[in-house]
C-alpha cells in the first residue's frame, strides 16, 4: 500500500509534505548532489534580502546538545541574483520553490515581494519575521511585536501575486505565539511556518567568551522539537483552517507524523540536513512507511489528529 501524500498550503499543492527549512538547504543546488530535488514537497530557500549580504563574522556556529547555535547573519546573494540564477535552476530540475524573504522594514519586504512577483514559478513566499527591526530601540525582531509582524505580512501580501500564498514564519520565543499567529492571519497570511530558531547563547568555557562571534545565535535541531510541536498544536487549535508548515528538529519520518498530528500540513527539515544531506528523502521514505504501518491511506488525514481524542490510528 502506498499512502496518498499530497498536501496543500493555501493554493499551493505539493506532492508530499516534506520540505526544506529556510537557511538549511541553500537554494537546493547543493542537496541535489544527494537526491532528486523534485522528489520532495518543496525547497524553502535561504532568506533573501534586496542586496547581496556578507553576513556575520566567524565563528558562526556552535554545537549544542541535540542541536546547534548559528549566526550566519543571512549571508546571501540578494534577491536579483537569486531570481536570475538560482530560481531558474531549481525550477529546471522540477523543484518547487518557497522563497523566504528577509527585510529591514516593511518597505524592503514590500519591494522584495514585488520583485518575486515578477518571476514565474514561485510556489509560495515565506516571510522571515525573525529579522531585527532597525526602528526598534532595543533591537527586537519584527516577530517580537505582533503589530509590527502583521504590518510586514500585510505589506508582503499586498505586493505579492494573488495566486502566490504568503506564509508568515513565526518565532517561538515570544510572549504569546497564538497572538502572533492571529495578528499574521488577520493581516491576510495564507499560512504559517512554525517555528524559527530560538535566541540562545553558548559560552566557550576556555575563553569565557560567547562561542559564536555575534554573541547570540539561533538554536535549532531536535532540542527544540517539543517546543515547536507545542506551538503548532496551540495555533492549530485556535486557527484550524490555517495551513501550517511545522519545523524544528525534524530528524525522522515519525517526527513528521508528530508535527502533522499536532496540526501541520507540511513539515520542514532543517538542521538535520547538515548532519545528513540525504535527510529529506530518507525522512519522506520513513514517513511513508510510518503511514503504511498504521494503515493510513492519506497523509492529510493525520493533520490535527492529536486534537481529536479517540481518532488515533
Amino acid at each position, binding site marked *: 500500500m502506498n499512502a496518498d501524500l499530497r498536501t496543500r498550503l493555501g493554493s499551493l499543492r505539493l506532492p508530499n509534505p516534506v520540505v526544506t527549512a529556510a537557511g538549511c538547504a541553500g537554494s537546493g543546488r547543493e542537496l541535489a548532489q544527494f537526491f532528486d530535488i523534485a522528489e520532495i514537497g518543496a525547497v524553502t530557500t535561504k532568506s533573501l534580502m534586496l542586496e547581496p549580504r556578507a553576513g556575520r563574522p566567524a565563528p558562526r556556529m556552535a554545537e549544542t546538545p541535540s542541536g546547534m547555535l548559528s549566526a550566519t547573519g543571512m549571508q546571501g546573494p540578494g534577491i536579483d541574483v537569486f531570481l536570475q540564477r538560482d530560481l531558474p535552476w531549481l525550477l529546471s530540475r522540477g523543484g518547487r520553490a518557497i522563497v523566504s524573504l528577509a527585510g529591514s522594514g516593511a518597505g524592503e519586504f514590500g519591494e522584495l515581494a514585488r520583485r518575486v512577483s515578477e518571476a514565474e514559478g514561485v510556489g509560495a513566499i515565506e516571510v522571515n519575521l525573525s529579522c531585527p527591526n532597525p526602528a526598534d530601540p532595543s533591537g527586537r525582531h519584527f516577530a517580537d511585536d505582533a503589530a509590527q509582524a502583521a504590518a510586514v505580512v500585510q505589506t508582503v501580501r499586498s505586493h505579492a501575486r494573488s495566486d502566490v500564498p504568503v506564509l508568515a514564519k513565526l518565532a517561538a520565543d515570544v510572549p504569546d505565539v497564538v497572538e502572533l499567529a492571529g495578528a499574521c492571519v488577520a493581516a491576510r497570511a495564507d499560512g504559517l511556518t512554525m517555528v524559527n530558531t530560538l535566541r540562545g547563547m553558548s559560552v566557550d568555557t576556555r575563553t569565557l567568551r560567547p562561542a559564536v*562571534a555575534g554573541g547570540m545565535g539561533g538554536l535549532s535541531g531536535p532540542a527544540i522539537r517539543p517546543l515547536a510541536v507545542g506551538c503548532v498544536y496551540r495555533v492549530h487549535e485556535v486557527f484550524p483552517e490555517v495551513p501550517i508548515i511545522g519545523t524544528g528538529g525534524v530528524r525522522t519520518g515519525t517526527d513528521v507524523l508528530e508535527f502533522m498530528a499536532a496540526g501541520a500540513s507540511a513539515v520542514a527539515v532543517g538542521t538535520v540536513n547538515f548532519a545528513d544531506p540525504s535527510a529529506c528523502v530518507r525522512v519522506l521514505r520513513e514517513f511513508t512507511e510510518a503511514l503504511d504501518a498504521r494503515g493510513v491511506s492519506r497523509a492529510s488525514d493525520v493533520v490535527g489528529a492529536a486534537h481529536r481524542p479517540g481518532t488515533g490510528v
Partner: protein
Amino acid sequence: MSVAVGGDHSSTLLRRPFAVHDVKPDYGGTVEFLFAVRGSGTAWLAERRSRDLLDVVGPLGRPFPLPRDPVNCVLVGGGSGSAPLFPLAQSLRRRGCRVDFVLGATSADRVFSAITARRIAETAAFTTDDGSFGTRGRVCDVLGRVIEEARSDAVYACGPMPMLRAVTAVAGSHGLPVQVAVEEAMACGVGICMSCVIPVVGEDGITRMVRSCVDGPVFRGEHVRFDDVGTIPFDALGAPGWKGSSAARAAESARDIA
C-alpha cells in the same frame, strides 16, 4: 570528507571534516584520514574498532591542483595538516615533480609519518615547537632554506591559519605560487550551513565570504585575506555599507555557485 560522530541517535549532530590521507584498493577499498582527539566527537571516533560502520560523505571540495609540468614542489604541513600532503606528494611524483617536505608539529610524538615522508620526498625537514624532533621552531624558520636548496617552483601547504599565512608570505617573498588547504570548522561540509566562510579575493578582484568546504578547502594563498579571517572586511561583497558596482552585480549573477 565529513564524518558523522556518535552513532544514529547521537546528540552531536554536526559532521566533522577531515582531509583524506590515502585511498587504497586493499580490503575492497579503504580511505584513510588522520585526526587528533579534541572533543567528544573525535573521542567517539577514536573508540571505533575494525568493522564498525562510519557515516562518511565525500570526497568534498576543491582538491590541490596539480602542475602541468614536472616542476619542483615543496609541501608544508602543520600537525595533522600533514596528512593530505602524502597523497599529493605521490600524485606529484607520478607527474615527474620533485617533492620536498617541511613538516611541523608541537613535539616529536605529534610528527606524522616521518619515515614515509623521507621515503617519498627528495628531502624532508622537520620542526617541533619544543625541539624534540628536527629543528626547534616553526616550519617557516626552515622553509626559505628548503626553497632555495631545492630550487622550488611551487608551494603547497596545509595546517592552521597562522601557519598558512606565514607560509604564503615566505612563498611570496620567493615569488612562488602557493596553494593552501584551510582547516576551518564546518557543520555540514556540503555548502549549505554557511559556517566555514573566510574572506577570499576572486579572479575579478572582488572579495567574497566563501565557503571553505565547497569553494575550498584549497585556495591560492595570495587570494586568502589572512589578516581579515574572523571578520567581514568592509570591502567584501555584501559587507555592511557595501555599494557594489553594477559590474560586480553582473559578475555575481553570472557566477556559478555549484
